[in-house]
């Protein structure tokens, strides 16, 4: 069999070597069967137990989804749970089993299909999606009636190959020792990708034709770093990847020993490593993984179904983090959301990413921003809290932000509440206009934090969640490197520190460049801290500076990457995958 290499999008890092299991969502077969009068009760019982089982399955999936995706991402399961509670339809099905004397799954299929068809025929996109949910739900109940063990084919570890995976599939397979995910569809921000990363399962998505080339039983190598899948690899390829796997696991062990060592280059230049967190609970993990503080505390999790807790409730959350991380610091970022997340009445925008988001919402709605600022200020009592604003695009906005912060301070003073009068104010540099104005803006704030995900998206005009264009989302695009270098230089001229809290900060390739550019702090997911520390401890600052200077002269991402790869290989071979 010929070796075939398929290229996709690296969605979750890691390497898997295993047997492919092609997953096609099977519609359970439903046949009509007459039942005898004395079997009616048994049949109804089967139906009711299937409902209960489906409910408990969905509850588990829902809880896991809330944990991993947030309440927004878990909404589909919530809708399914609500539909599963429909007593009118349940009663109707029981009634029909009694009257028509046919098997439960046939009635369920027949009855629910009526509504599915109804929903599908509407012109409403939302409802068409709900029709999918209802179909999913129907199949789940029927499967449970038939007591089919859906996952029984998972006799041993497999690489799941599918056209697309729902979050429910992704979560369920993860409990069955799945080795990796390979999908035709999906981008780096698809639910499958986010969940796979959270579950630490390697994944390559957006392969377009993986299901065409891979059969169940094929040997497959999944390279979640490069975003490739190798079908029917020859022995030499298998050996090569097995060696890589061994090297990675040995390296992970080595990393553990770095926990209490400083993030310092060989020639003694020290950097600060911080963690990005989304929930207060994550502080413990961050500390345990060696974070010196929290470089980005996202506050959006507080908003529940469009409801923003009041100042006191927000304060409780912020002080939790400030106290846990003390004497380390925490940078609290104000809500970075689109208007759609808060206002049910929100009018649809043609370009939400260019629309009413981040600080634009905050400045337009002081009744949202001010209570949050007061809550953050109150949490700053021990002087280890900083406040940061997202999506800033101009100097005018910076000045308005400063006025707002002063207003919040004076409101607290009036109430006689103490806080850190000298609280540091910083902004995210994630809009290209702010990056280009860095020199001027740096004179008016206390720190910068570069948010690479948006900076790249806006500079290159690429939505990386869009699988059609995801490939031209380039972290190492020369334009990006030049912008970053300019921001760092401008900040240092104004004598303010710069950190980076985007995903790029957690990339070993990028970290070499960043420390070479002289970034002061890197804030990364807790899981990446030791990896980045290892990079820092393996280089000389002098060399990093040389590499980053050289990297700026290349004209394409490809040239940049090839150059860094070559340099890294000499410094830390483990990273040159």
């Amino acid at each position: 069999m010929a070796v075939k290499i398929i290229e996709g999008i690296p969605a979750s890092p890691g390497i898997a070597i295993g047997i492919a299991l092609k997953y096609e969502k099977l519609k359970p077969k439903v046949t009509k069967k007459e039942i005898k009068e004395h079997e009616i009760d048994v049949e109804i019982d089967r139906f009711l137990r299937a409902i209960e089982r489906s409910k408990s399955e969905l509850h588990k999936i829902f809880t896991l989804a809330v944990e991993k995706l947030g309440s927004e991402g878990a909404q589909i399961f919530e809708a399914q749970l609500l539909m599963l509670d429909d007593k009118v339809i349940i009663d109707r099905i029981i009634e029909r089993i009694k009257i028509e004397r046919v098997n439960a799954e046939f009635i369920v299929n027949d009855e629910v299909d009526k509504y599915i068809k109804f929903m599908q025929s509407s012109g409403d996109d939302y409802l068409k999606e709900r029709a999918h949910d209802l179909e999913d739900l129907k199949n789940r109940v029927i499967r449970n009636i038939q007591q089919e063990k859906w996952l029984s084919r998972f006799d041993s570890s497999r690489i799941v190959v599918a056209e697309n995976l729902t979050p429910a599939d992704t979560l369920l397979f993860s409990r069955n020792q799945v080795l990796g995910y390979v999908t035709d569809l999906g981008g780096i921000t698809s639910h499958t990708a986010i969940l796979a990363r959270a579950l630490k399962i390697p994944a390559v998505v957006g392969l377009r034709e993986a299901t065409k080339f891979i059969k169940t039983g094929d040997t497959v190598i999944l390279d979640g770093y490069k975003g490739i899948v190798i079908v029917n690899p020859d022995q030499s390829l298998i050996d090569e990847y097995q060696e890589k796997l061994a090297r990675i696991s040995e390296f992970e062990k080595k990393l553990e020993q770095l926990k209490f060592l400083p993030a310092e280059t060989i020639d003694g230049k020290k950097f600060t490593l911080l963690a990005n967190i989304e929930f207060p609970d994550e502080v413990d993990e961050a500390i345990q993984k060696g974070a010196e503080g929290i470089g980005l505390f996202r506050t959006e999790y507080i908003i529940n179904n469009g409801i923003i807790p009041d100042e006191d409730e927000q304060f409780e959350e912020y002080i939790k983090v400030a106290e846990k991380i003390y004497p380390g610091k925490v940078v609290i970022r104000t809500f970075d959301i689109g208007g759609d997340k808060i206002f049910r009445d929100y009018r649809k925008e043609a370009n939400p990413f260019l629309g009413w988001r981040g600080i634009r919402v905050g400045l337009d709605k002081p009744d949202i921003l001010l209570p949050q600022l007061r809550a953050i200020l109150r949490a700053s009592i021990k002087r280890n809290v900083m406040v940061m604003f997202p999506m800033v695009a101009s100097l005018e906005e910076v000045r308005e932000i400063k006025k707002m912060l002063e207003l919040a301070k004076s409101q607290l003073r009036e109430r006689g509440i103490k806080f850190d009068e000298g609280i540091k104010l910083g902004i995210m540099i994630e809009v290209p206009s702010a990056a280009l104005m860095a020199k001027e803006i740096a004179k008016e704030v206390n720190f910068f934090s570069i948010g690479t995900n948006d900076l790249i998206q806006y500079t290159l005009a690429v939505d990386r969640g869009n699988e059609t264009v995801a490939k031209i989302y380039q972290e190492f695009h020369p334009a990006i490197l030049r912008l970053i270098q300019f921001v760092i230089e401008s900040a240092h001229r104004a004598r303010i520190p710069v950190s980076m809290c985007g995903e790029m900060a957690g990339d070993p390739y990028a970290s070499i460049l960043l420390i070479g550019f002289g970034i002061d702090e890197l804030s990364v997911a807790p899981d990446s801290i030791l990896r980045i520390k290892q990079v820092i401890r393996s280089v000389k600052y002098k060399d990093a500076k040389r590499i980053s200077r050289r990297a700026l002269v290349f004209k394409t991402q490809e040239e940049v990457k090839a150059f860094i790869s070559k340099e890294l290989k000499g410094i830390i071979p483990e990273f040159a995958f």
Partner: protein
Amino acid sequence: MIKKEVEIKNRTGLHTRPAAMLVKLASKFKSDFFIEKNGVEVNGKSIIGVMSLAAEQGSKLTLKFIGEDEVEAARAIIELFESGFGEIEELKKDENRDGSQNN
């Protein structure tokens, strides 16, 4: 029997959450409750039924209440429709903002 015509005021229509609120409220009453839209009638205590109506903002619905507590049921449910299912109408004020956002 009480029959009453209502119009959907809230922006999102009878989508999942409003539908769930409606069904939950309707189920507190003993009376039967039906909703009709364009000649299609569904049981108002069935969330799947209510959702499948695809009732958007501005849709006109006929509500029917039949049973011993139909007066109370009608009052409570009509009030829920009137209140726009408690959705905030925050954005109204901002509707004129857009002029400045054109390129």
